[in-house]
Each structure stands twice: as C-alpha cells, then as structure tokens.
C-alpha cells in the first residue's frame, strides 16, 4: 500500500558519496592518529629520560585488592602526599594486564600510572625494554633514584627477577622460595622421619602409598609445578643469559631425575595431580597432607586458611628445601610480587617515597604483608611475628635460611614458564601420561614460545 517516495537522487549515487565521505573521514582520523604528540623528555639524573617534574602533583598508584592495604598504610603515614589509588587485577593468573595497559599507554603516549604493583616476577623483562616510540616503562632504580643502601638491604638474590642487564628495575615485595611444608602431628603419628633429600622424599612417598594410601606428600597439578620440582632439581628449562637470549635443555639428567620422581609418586598416589586451589583438593586431602614442597606463601594461602586445608594450630612446620644426595641445597621460587616506578612519572619523588614505603617499611611489610618480606630486616621481624603467633610447629628459621637459596639458573623471561607447562604437561599427567614422556615436548614448547617473543634460543 505504501507508495515509493519520489527520489531526486539515485540511491546508488548517494551511497557512493557516503562511502567517499566515510573514506575521507577515516583517512583524516588515521592521519590524526599518526601525528600523535611526541613527549618532550630530557635526560635525567637517574639513568633514564625524565619528564618535567611537578612537585606535589598527585601520583597514580596501581595495586591489586590485597595491596590496597599498602596504599592505605601509606596514606596514614604520609597524609600530605596526594595519591590516587587504582585497583586492578595485579596482572595475576597470566592476565598480563600490566603489560597490556602499558602498551596501550605507550601507543597513546600518555596516561601511565606512577607506581604499579605486579604479582608477577617477570615483568622487568619487558618493562626495562624500549618499545617502538617509547622509552622503557620501568624507571631504573639503582641509578640514584633509590638509595643504594636500601637496595643492598634486600635478601640476596631476591632482586634477580628485577635485574636486567645489571640494572635494577623493581623492588620485590615478598619472597616466594620453596620450602618443605610438613604436618608434624601426622609425622609423629605415623612414626616417619622428615626427609632431607629428594631420594628420601621418593622413598617416603612409596611408604605412604603402601601404608597410608590417601595421604599425600606433594601436589603437581598446578601451573607452578615446574617451579617447585624442576627448578629445585636445577633443570635447565630457561636460563636467560642475556636480555634476549635463553638456553633451554629439558632432557638433561637434572630434568630427567625429577621427572622420574614425579612419575613414580604420581603413579602411586602419594603426589596428587589436583590443583591445590581446586575445591576437590580440599575435599579429598583436608587432614591428609603429610608434606608438601611449596612456596612460603602456602602457609597463609593453604594451611592456615579457612577456605583451604585449614589445618589447626601447632601442626604445620617448615623444613629446609630438599636437595639431591651429595649436592648443595637449592630451591625454586613461585611468584612474589614486585613494585615498579614509572619512568614517565612527573613526580618521581612521591613515587619513590611510596615504593620505598611499600617495599621496606615495618608499617606495611611487617604488620600487613601476607607474604614473607623480601627486605631482609623486615623479613626477620615478620618471621619472628609469625613464630610468636603460635600457629606453627617448631621454629621458622627454614624460611629465612632458604631465602637466598633460589637457584639462579632459572630465569625470568617475558613469557610465562607456568603457562607453557600448564599447556603441554598438565593435560598429559592429569590423564595418566608421564612427565618423562613430555620432557622433550615441554622443552620444544619453551623454545617456540621464546622465539615468538624475540629470544635467541641456545
């Protein structure tokens, strides 16, 4: 019924002019995008180009939910320093949001936060590098910005992940080296002695499997399994030898012996392939964890946590990391957060004040930090405080003693070693396969990943 309206122009012509117009608009927008402003930077006194400093300007601080406490403590201690706290996911669980956001700011050439918290230890690998058109995001800290005495006060080796080409780009918040967690009550009950070597650990696993099936002495279902087991065995999964060079050899004797240990203990059930953070882990193993090699933060995250195993006070102890018979004790490391200062900050003085407070002050590190402080003086006080709490069985000297035992042959490349393991090995061992059979494939996956991320693989 509706009559077609009379047209003065043919629709096709109109469409064509519209298309032309949109094309022109697009090109104009493109040109505008390309002509984005260039930053005016002069060479600064601390080893990186600084932007013009504005004293008393507000600094933007990015923290995750847990680290809001650090920002609050800073505000209470420094009410005169204006800070703007922004909560983000802390780049946790491989979200990589820290790098993602910074790269967008690099493109936009503005918007960088002044201080950033990251739960990852490998961010310095990219944050210390120039991106096309932009200077490295991370400010070099040991070029005079942070006092050298303060940097020297960190536990030896704890700043390794922050160090690229001999320069320090971040301050470590907490240590995350592995120790041997054990349940003293269960050991006494079963009449077992604590293992000190991996050989004894494997024997213990065999004994537990036959005498007390259902009890476990470790977990290998998480992405950080290689950092607990392979790292401690000096397996050469990724030795970062230069800024963009890495050596990978996963078929070495060091890797093979640990793979065999895992295969034996997984097969007899004394090591589980459940993730320690899965609900089924808690269902199956609450009260049945005899021992567990794992990072220092397992104490709060797993043993003394109502959401996890919730082991009663007086049972859990920490022992020195295991070693292979006749070798020096070394251990691995799982995470441990880091603090960064932006090289683009217009108020480096305030940013430095914040990071120094968060990483070294007793107000935050001893009183509020859920993990073991990397700053040595704070770390000792933190351990003493934990020991006083009465939760742990025995003393906690293993925590401080093992702090500098992290094997330095396992580097922190820009990509996630955890993700490579989770993708190639975890699906195999959770469906009945063996670690030994995947060693080669695992190594190849690391090499491939290194290559696409611009590493020269040796």
């Amino acid at each position, binding site marked *: 019924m509706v009559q077609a309206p*009379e047209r003065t122009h043919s629709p096709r012509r109109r469409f064509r002019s*519209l298309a032309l117009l949109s094309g022109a608009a*697009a090109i104009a927008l493109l040109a505008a995008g390309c002509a984005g402003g260039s930053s005016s930077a002069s060479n600064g006194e601390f080893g990186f180009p600084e932007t013009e400093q504005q004293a008393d300007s507000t600094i933007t601080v990015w923290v995750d939910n847990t680290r809001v406490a650090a920002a609050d403590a800073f505000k209470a201690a420094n009410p005169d320093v204006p800070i703007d706290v922004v909560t983000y996911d802390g780049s946790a*669980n491989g979200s990589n949001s820290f790098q993602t956001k910074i790269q967008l700011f690099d493109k936009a050439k503005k918007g960088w936060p002044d201080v950033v918290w990251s739960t990852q230890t490998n961010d310095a690998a990219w944050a210390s590098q120039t991106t096309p058109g932009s200077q490295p995001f991370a400010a070099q800290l040991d070029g005079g910005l942070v006092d050298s005495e303060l940097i020297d006060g960190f536990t030896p080796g704890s700043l390794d992940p922050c160090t690229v080409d001999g320069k320090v780009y971040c301050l470590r918040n907490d240590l995350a080296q592995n120790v041997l967690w054990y349940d003293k009550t269960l050991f006494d009950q079963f009449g077992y002695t604590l293992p000190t070597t991996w050989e004894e650990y494997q024997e213990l696993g065999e004994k537990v499997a036959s005498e007390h099936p259902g009890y476990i002495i470790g977990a290998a*279902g998480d992405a950080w399994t290689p950092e607990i087991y392979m790292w401690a065995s000096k397996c050469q999964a990724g030795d970062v030898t230069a800024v963009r060079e890495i050596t990978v050899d996963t078929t070495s004797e060091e890797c093979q012996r640990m793979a065999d240990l895992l295969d034996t203990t997984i097969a007899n059930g004394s090591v589980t*392939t459940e993730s320690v953070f899965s609900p*089924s882990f808690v269902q199956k193993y609450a009260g049945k964890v005899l021992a567990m090699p794992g990072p220092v933060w397992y104490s709060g995250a797993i043993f003394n946590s109502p959401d996890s195993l919730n082991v009663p006070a007086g049972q859990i102890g920490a022992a020195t990391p295991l070693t292979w018979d006749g070798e020096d004790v070394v251990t691995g490391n799982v995470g441990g957060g880091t603090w960064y200062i932006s090289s683009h900050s217009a108020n480096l003085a305030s940013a430095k004040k914040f990071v120094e407070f968060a990483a070294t002050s007793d107000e935050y590190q001893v009183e509020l930090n859920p993990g073991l402080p990397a700053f040595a003086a704070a770390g000792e006080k933190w351990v003493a405080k934990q020991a006083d709490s009465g939760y742990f069985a025995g003393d906690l000297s293993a925590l401080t003693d093992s702090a500098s035992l992290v094997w330095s042959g396992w580097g922190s490349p820009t990509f996630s070693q955890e993700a490579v393991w989770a993708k190639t090995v975890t*699906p195999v061992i959770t469906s009945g396969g063996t670690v030994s059979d995947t060693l080669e494939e695992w190594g190849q996956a690391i090499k491939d990943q290194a290559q696409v991320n611009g590493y020269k693989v040796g």
Partner: protein
Amino acid sequence: MTATVPDVEATAAAGVTPRLGRSPRRAGRASVRRSPVKNRMGYVFVSGYTVLMLVFGVFPALYALVLSVTTIDGSFAGFDNFAKVLGDYRFLPAVGHVAVYLVIWLVSLLVLVVLLALVVHAIRIRWLSNASRFIFYIPGALAGASSVMLWLFVLDPSVSPVGWLLEAFGFESFVQTINPANLPVVFTVIAFWTGAGGWIVIMYGALNNIPEEVMEAAKIDGANAVQTAVRIQLPMMKKWIAYMGIMSLAAGTQLFVEPQLLSQASNAVVANDYSLNQLAYLYAFQQNDFNGSAAISILLLVIALALSAFFVARGGLFEKD
C-alpha cells in the same frame, strides 16, 4: 463526521485512502509524510547506525588494514606481516581449533535450533509453549563473560550440579573436563546454552509468519508433521536459517571470551593462544606487535566475509520475495 466529507477527495488525490473517523488534517499530514520529508526521515533513522558502524566497524577495519601492511615505524611492509603470522607455530593450531569448533557448533546450532523451534511451534498447549520459549531464552539474558563464569562451576565435577554426568563421562577433575581434546565440544555447549534460546525465539517468529492457509492446505493434502516441516516450513524458513548461520559464523570465528576465561581459570591449562582472536591479542599485547595482530584480524575478516558470502548466496538472503 460530516466535516470530513469534503476532504476525502483531496486526500484521495494525494494517493492516500483515508480511514473513517480520522480527522482530515491528520490524514492530510500523513500524505505529506510519505513524500520527501519521510524519505529524509529514513536517513535520519539509519544515520545513528551508520555513524556507529563507521566509527567502530569501518574505520577500525581500515586502520587494521593499514597496520597489517606497514612495519612498526610506519613504512610499507607488503605481505611481511601476513607471512610472519602464517609462519607462527601457533597459527595453524589456532585455525584448526576455531574450524573444528565452528563445524561442531554451527551444525549443532542449525539442526537443534530449527528442530526445537519446530517442536515448540507444534506444541498446541499455550502455556507450555510460552514457558518453554521463556526457559530457552533465559540463559541468553546473561552477558557472555558472566555465563562463562557460571560454566566454570558447571564443568568442575566436584562442585557441579551435574557432577554425576561428568563423572559418567569419566571426568573426575576440572582439568580432565577441559582437556584440550574436549574443548570444541565444551565451547559448543557453552555457546549453545547462551545463544540458542534467542535464536529459537526468532525461528518461532519465522514459523508464525508462514501463512495459516499454506499450513492448512498441507494438512488437507494429508501431509503429516514431518512432511509439513520438511516440505513447507523448512523451505519457508530458509532465509532465517541463513541469517542465523551468518550471525553465528561471525560470532564463532571471533571465539575469545570462552577460551580466555577458561585459560585464566585453569591457570593456563587451556592455552591462552587457543583461538585466532587470542593469538591476535597476544601479538598486540604480549609481543607488542600491533602490525602482526592486525594481519591476523584482516585474515579473519577475509575468511568471515567469504563464508558469509556463501551463506548469503545459498540462503537467498538478499533476494526479494
């Protein structure tokens, strides 16, 4: 009423049949509206869409095209970026993952949605028909990411309400359920659960559009329900099915949220380079290679356009009745 009589002729002359009881002035204005003013209104109505399409569709696509043929410092790169991403060891597996997922998903979507719509349409009990459409539609009301979050729990045998079913399939832990080999089916189930309800409602509408006389004629000719469905309803729904195919294809090639969230939730057991879009994301934000990322996007665009053209041609989507 008498006042309207003198105007009837005028409005009739303007090509409009006046309705009884309508005031002559309104009828007169209606006739004006169909002339160029209304014509122009049409453009106003589509302008909002056009502007958004240009800003968020056409312009980014052009920008990606420019990026994909340039280097990081802006000089012309030819097909280097394409060669680079095609040679990436992650590219072909990602293509494979998306292709397998697309095949399983599109086939199951087309078959099951049409079947369910036919069944729901055939239900003569009014409340049951209404209720089933409503129930089908509910999951679609959840936003994409939040429905994936829900599925994280459904897929974990220890907390899942259908844990017994997962265990019957031999899955005893979350990691076993999301084993890479199961992922295309897992993503299909998630996508079907979130998206199919909306399509069932649309197909139901399409079935309602089939004239009653045609259906009656089929019945008189002795066609049973299956024959009616195959000979009458399916051919008359062809365009709607093609439309569903295109929209779902476009969404399916862009698989991202499901593997990305599963990757984070499983601590990377589901790889963060599972799909092509994830790979593009990694290129841009982990390798800081926006040009390579753009090359992947352009490849995706070309493939999606080609497949859509197939659906348009086969479904007769642009043909006039």
